[in-house]
């Protein structure tokens, strides 16, 4: 009955925030790691012993695990017929919980995406923001006019959360991306590359490791470069302080990872314009390599499509955006580029080569 479907979906959507919070809790309690340490299978009692859950909360842990299994975070085998309290159920890991096991795990990324003060609660103000005529971003509206980059300067815990999340995300996605596109000619033939907005150099170093003949440099703001860890300046990658809106050092290619989605169209066209000045012609191998989403590209599974548009909302709060192909095409053309090529990667992201 359609009305039933409507109501169950209303409740379902209304409760979806719990999925973010429940996963965050499971990671905070160390449940994926605990299951891993138990050899990949654990009962509730095993988990209670291995995590910080108070013994009085065992029945609640069982209910949390039941929910998480329902969401696909863990797998279970079926309960024994005489088991009335779920104590015999065995939990195992799934792809998502496996990469949340400690020791190189992805939990800082999850913590940033579902961070109460700077992510979750920001969206509560959406209705008011939509009615407002001002130019403040959603983030600024909720944080007293302070944009995220300023907040990281003043709020040490937010700064740490951002840096940790970016570090694990770069580490994981750069290695995975390079493995995926290794044979596709994207980085082949380059002699030099500058990673604009490349932060502490994790991405540039990953490229330099995979393609040792490419001379890699990072361009970023003075206050970012100055904090780059000591080992970063071992000569593998050159660090250059500067502003991408002013000038980009010349190179064969410019690499832009998660930069253009932080800016609106006008700013993106300016950045791309500076890139075009820095690289040679297409015949001489000049190109811009963008690592971002192309909304609508990739596998047609629901998970991918939804994640892309949710990510767009997430960036919207900063005044940024995830773009569909024609939206990308528009800014490429406006910046004077002639052609582009999209290669889907990592399930929901893409590499876009843009040619002058």
């Amino acid at each position, binding site marked *: 009955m359609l009305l039933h479907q409507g109501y169950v*979906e209303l409740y379902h959507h209304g*409760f979806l925030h719990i999925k973010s919070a429940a996963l965050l809790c499971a990671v905070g309690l160390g449940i994926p790691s605990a299951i891993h340490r138990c050899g990949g299978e654990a009962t509730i009692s095993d988990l209670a012993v291995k995590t910080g859950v108070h013994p009085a909360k065992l029945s609640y842990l069982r209910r949390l695990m039941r929910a998480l299994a329902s969401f696909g975070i863990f797998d279970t085998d079926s309960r024994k017929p005489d088991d009335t309290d779920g104590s015999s159920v065995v939990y195992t890991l799934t792809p998502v919980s496996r990469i949340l096991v400690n020791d190189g795990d992805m939990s800082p990324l999850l913590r940033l995406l579902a961070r109460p003060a700077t992510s979750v609660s920001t969206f509560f103000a959406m209705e008011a923001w939509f009615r407002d005529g001002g130019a403040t971003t959603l983030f600024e509206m909720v944080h007293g006019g302070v944009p995220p980059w300023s907040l990281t300067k003043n709020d040490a815990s937010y700064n740490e959360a951002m840096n940790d999340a970016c570090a694990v995300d770069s580490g994981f996605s750069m290695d995975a991306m390079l493995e995926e596109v290794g044979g596709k000619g994207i980085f082949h033939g380059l002699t030099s590359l500058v990673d604009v907005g490349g932060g502490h150099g994790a991405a540039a170093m990953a490229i330099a490791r995979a393609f040792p003949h490419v001379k890699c440099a990072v361009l970023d703001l003075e206050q970012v470069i100055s904090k780059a860890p000591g080992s970063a300046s071992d000569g593998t990658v050159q660090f250059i302080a500067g502003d991408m809106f002013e000038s980009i050092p010349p190179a064969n290619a410019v690499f832009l990872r998660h930069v253009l989605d932080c800016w609106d169209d006008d700013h993106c066209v300016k950045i791309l314009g500076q890139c075009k000045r820095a690289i040679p012609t297409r015949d001489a191998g000049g190109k811009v390599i963008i690592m971002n989403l192309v909304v609508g590209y990739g596998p047609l599974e629901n998970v991918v499509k939804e994640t892309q548009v949710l990510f*767009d909302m997430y960036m919207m709060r900063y005044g940024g955006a995830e773009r569909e192909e024609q939206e990308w095409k528009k800014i490429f053309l406006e910046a004077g580029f002639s052609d582009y090529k999209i290669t889907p990667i990592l399930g929901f992201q893409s590499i876009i080569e843009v040619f002058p």
Partner: protein
Amino acid sequence: MSSSQQEEVSTKDLHQGYVEIWHHGLFHIKSSALLCAVGLGIPSAIYRLGGAATTSDIATETGVHHSKLSYLRRLMRMLRFCGIFTADEPSEGEDETIYRLTPVSQVLVDDQGKVPSTPYDITAVSTFFSLERWFRDAGDKTLFEVAHGVHPWTLTKNDASYNKAVNDSMVMDSSLFMDIMLKEVGGTDIFRGLTSLVDFGGGLGVAAMAIAMAFPHIKCTVLDLEQVISQAPSSDGTVEFIVGDMFEYIPPADAVFLKLIFDCWDDDDSVKILRQCKREIPATDAGGKVIIVNCVLGYGPQDDVYMETQVLFDVYMMRYGGAQREEHEWKRIFSEAGFSDYNITPIFGFQSIIEVFP
């Protein structure tokens, strides 16, 4: 990742896990975006425009500021991909997508001048981000108290805007819900033969009034706390309102009606409430019964969305120290309170009506 872990996991699984972290981490946005769409009145706007509207039409109709049009377009795109709306792709020569309603946005249309409900309040959303801290906590405070430092019913007494938010979020308090429910059970014996009924925790009287109108021979009374009854619309006599605490006193009646009550309370408190009920109703032969509206976990269509909604609802009630119960858990508290039998009738997709007999 350490190399030993990498060997165990295939590239496909790694990619899948990576997407799912983003997907799960951002799920909270689905709830907030839905709240925003309802607050802006988008479903109602599309309905008023004949069931099909472009983003520009929607902006004009809802009062979204014209400078925010491109953002509204992106919000509509997101809501469409998440199943809240559907869209016709622009035809030749047109460049605006046309949006239509789906079952879920259909139930969010309000054509009677009232803002439709979403089944949560913002305080609830922030409560769940204290889950880890609460799990580590040795005390017996509820999740809500750990997150907000105060008991929810105390907060409704002291904070008028929270009180309103909680009342507004009671979707199942809507007369539409009651109409559906009563239609579904109209042909059964659930309400037949009753001469009087008390709606325990009956809030603003919507349920009691719907029952009284469908079954005019049943004398209906609402029992609830002072701060709730004081917000009820003035009664025209169809239903009597009594201020009281269900742990202390229940007026005698043929039947006690408890809609979405037991999921707020743990087993001990639920047994206490049931014992109070048993004191005030006649024997089964004389028509006495308790009528409960709540989830029975595992009952209903075995479809993923239904099952997942029930377990989400269970975690949701954890914030009050409550729970959604499986059949054997319901059976246990009925027996403990001295009841002899029960009958479950699934309704509304994921809910049930349970008659309990003394």
